[in-house]
């Protein structure tokens, strides 16, 4: 291991803002994207449900049904 202390690790030899900025930006982007996709999915499923209700189909239906392999 190239580090002698935790402080040394976080200091990154003086490059801390650049190194952690890069890793942080990637971590942030790669957490936000899946979250946005899940959020969008829920929106679509809700609107599908509304559409069904509007169509007058009264069977108990929940978005979860789209989860199950058909």
């Amino acid at each position, binding site marked *: *291991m*190239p*580090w002698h202390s935790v402080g040394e*690790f976080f200091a*990154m*030899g*003086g*490059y801390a*803002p*650049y*190194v952690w*900025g*890069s*890793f942080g*930006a*990637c971590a942030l*982007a*790669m957490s936000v*994207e*899946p979250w946005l*996709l*899940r959020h*969008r*999915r829920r929106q*679509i*499923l809700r609107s*599908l449900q509304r*559409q*069904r209700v509007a*169509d007058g189909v009264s*069977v108990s*239906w929940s978005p979860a*049904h*789209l*989860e*199950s*392999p*058909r």
Partner: protein
Amino acid sequence: MPRQHFRSFHYAAPATFYPLAGRLQPLFMALAVVLAAIGLWIGLLVAPTDAQQGEGYRIIFVHVPASWMSMFIYCVMAFWAAVGLAFNIRLAAMMASALAPTGALFAALSLLTGALWGKPMWGTWWVWDARLTSELILFFLYIGFIALQSAIDDPRRADKAGAILALVGVVNVPIIYFSVRWWNTLHQGASVSMTQSPSMARTMLWAMLVMALAFWMYSIAVALARVRNIILERERQTEWVRHAMA
């Protein structure tokens, strides 16, 4: 034989691909998380300090994977766009649309991490040199593809227009890749070359490759999640979505 032929197109139908993608997506995401953990461990805790760049070089472990993925995703996107255009397969066109935002994200991350690396090493966030400029063009190609598709209301026409843009833009990918050889540039040469033995320490190389693999698995996972959303939106009037209940 005709039956066999039919079989191979089985998953080309959105209705059959939708549940398959749903099963595969968490698998690829789990792989991405595990590989990223291993890659970060090697890259941050095992790989030695670089003789020239000190600890600053560690940006390579996110910069190179992001850059590779931005180019690779574009090729895959152009491939699916071409398949969709040539064989008129809706799912292929949907795959192309699903890949574009993730490709744009990686192009942006490549430019951002590159700027954060350029500042301490070259003394500047940005130079208009061949490598950086062609990567910026790649980012604009993704944005153009997304904008063009969202500007056209009819999805089938949007698919066709997007496919043509994606295919024309694919010439930019080899330009990015070979730019460091074709032109004088501040950017360092290829990190991994087919013809030469790697110029960096073995642990550095491993960390980079594992991180690249993690980014790859992540890309597959999010592309599958997005294509599922696209399928649901576009097929909302079809019987199978309306009667998706078992």
